[in-house]
């Protein structure tokens, strides 16, 4: 039964290493990532796996659950991380086929970073939209360290304030060439330059060279506006451990919303420019953006929330009416 006890040889002749932590082993070949765990194996297309892995690494395991697909993923406990097979899959759970192991976040992050570095070939950018990047299939060929070292950007107060996150110098994305780049007029009296502040938020976000990577732009205490440009499919299915909100600033995203625990479909949410919607604390969601679009993910960064939702102290729905 113990598949993982046998050292994996997957991909060795192709130049890829296998990576292991606890009783999980990961191997890749030309097309697939193979995950071996006590009790079985799981398989994913390697491009989808690397795009999901990129977000999990860059976000430090994010809020709640990062589902790579309907079977494999991680749950962030902010210090420790659970890596799982089938934990949020009705079929696996009903038949006791799920497997979970807990790791120190820093240990798992190190293994994930090593795997990402090893398996990402030259010319493939797991943060880019598929139309903007090359293929990752085939034998090992070079690397793309620069692309995978990008971190989630976090403003302390607001982008552009002295000492805070600086403006992006990248060009407007190819699909945002028609977004106005005009600057606001700022007339600060002497001594108030740090407070009288405005900037072109749309222009700033539309210069992002990554997709599905919310970065904090403005904060009101624990209230964070996390802006991101989206194109193609969200590479993970995010399982909420708190309520989050979406504000669609341009274009359109269609969200699949499924039950967080079972994966059963609950709704499809179509959001157009100006639409605002909550994502309850008991769902998972995956977005589809036909054209690159500007999305504001609005988060509450209060560290006590996961426990309050998990214990039932807070209802998963943000407003009662």
């Amino acid at each position: 039964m113990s598949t993982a006890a046998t050292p994996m040889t997957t991909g060795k002749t192709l130049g890829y290493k296998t990576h292991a932590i606890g009783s999980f082993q990961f191997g890749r070949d030309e097309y697939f990532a193979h995950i071996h765990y006590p009790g079985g194996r799981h398989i994913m297309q390697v491009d989808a796996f690397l795009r999901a892995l990129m977000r999990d690494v860059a976000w430090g395991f994010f809020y709640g659950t990062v589902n790579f697909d309907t079977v494999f993923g991680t749950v962030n406990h902010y210090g420790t991380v659970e890596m799982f097979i089938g934990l949020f899959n009705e079929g696996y759970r009903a038949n006791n086929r799920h497997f979970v192991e807990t790791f120190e976040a820093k240990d798992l992050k190190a293994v994930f970073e090593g795997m990402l570095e090893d398996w990402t070939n030259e010319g493939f950018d797991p943060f880019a939209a598929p139309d903007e990047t090359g293929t990752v299939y085939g034998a090992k060929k070079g690397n793309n360290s620069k692309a995978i070292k990008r971190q989630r950007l976090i403003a302390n107060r607001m982008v552009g304030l002295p000492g805070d996150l600086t403006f992006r110098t990248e060009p407007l994305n190819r699909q945002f060439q028609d977004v106005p780049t005009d600057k606001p007029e700022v007339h600060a009296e002497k001594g108030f330059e740090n407070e009288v502040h405005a900037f072109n938020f749309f222009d700033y976000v539309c210069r992002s060279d990554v997709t599905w990577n919310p970065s904090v732009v403005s904060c009101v205490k624990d209230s964070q506006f996390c802006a991101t440009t989206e194109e193609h499919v969200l590479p993970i299915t995010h399982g909420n451990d708190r309520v989050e909100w979406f504000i669609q600033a341009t274009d359109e995203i269609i969200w699949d919303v499924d039950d967080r625990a079972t994966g059963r479909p609950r709704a499809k949410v179509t959001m157009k420019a100006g639409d605002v919607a909550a994502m309850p604390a008991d769902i998972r969601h995956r977005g589809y953006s036909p054209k690159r679009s500007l999305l504001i993910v609005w988060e509450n960064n209060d560290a006590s929330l996961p426990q309050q939702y998990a214990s039932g102290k807070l209802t998963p729905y943000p407003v009662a009416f």
Partner: protein
Amino acid sequence: MSMQKTTFGSLENFEKGSVQVIDDNPKHYAFSNVFEVASKSKPYEKVAVGKNLKYVIEAVRAEGTSPWFAAAHDEATLVMDGEIEIHFVKPDQPPVPEGKEGTVRLSAEPKGKSMGWVKVRRGHMALLPKGSAYQFRNTGKPGVLMVQTIQGENTVEKWSEICQIKP
């Protein structure tokens, strides 16, 4: 390279999406549209379109000149439509007690020092800094602002009027 046009919304021209329910209640998503909300609001009415415990996002119809507002914490505003000036004053006396949350409406322009002003258009974000008083001025067509703040005495909640209720 093919280039698709970027779609923005405005007060005159917006399309609203929807929640297509499979096994859920649409109220769980509190689905609204800031342009639709502002199209039915009074000038500078602060209508909550997002609420995460004490934090809110308000949709504001920016038409004419607003009252003077202040808060004891930072707030931020993002212009979704129109062109608006925001004027800032550092009041001689703190306009809002420390620790009070949400936007407070002042009865008049407070005595104090001018901090300056900004002119912002669609896509621009401005800081509404803690401890300042500020006033929105719009001499053009009505605009739409989103305000990132904390729920306060001026936050208007009318969810059943603004949100999708029927599956």
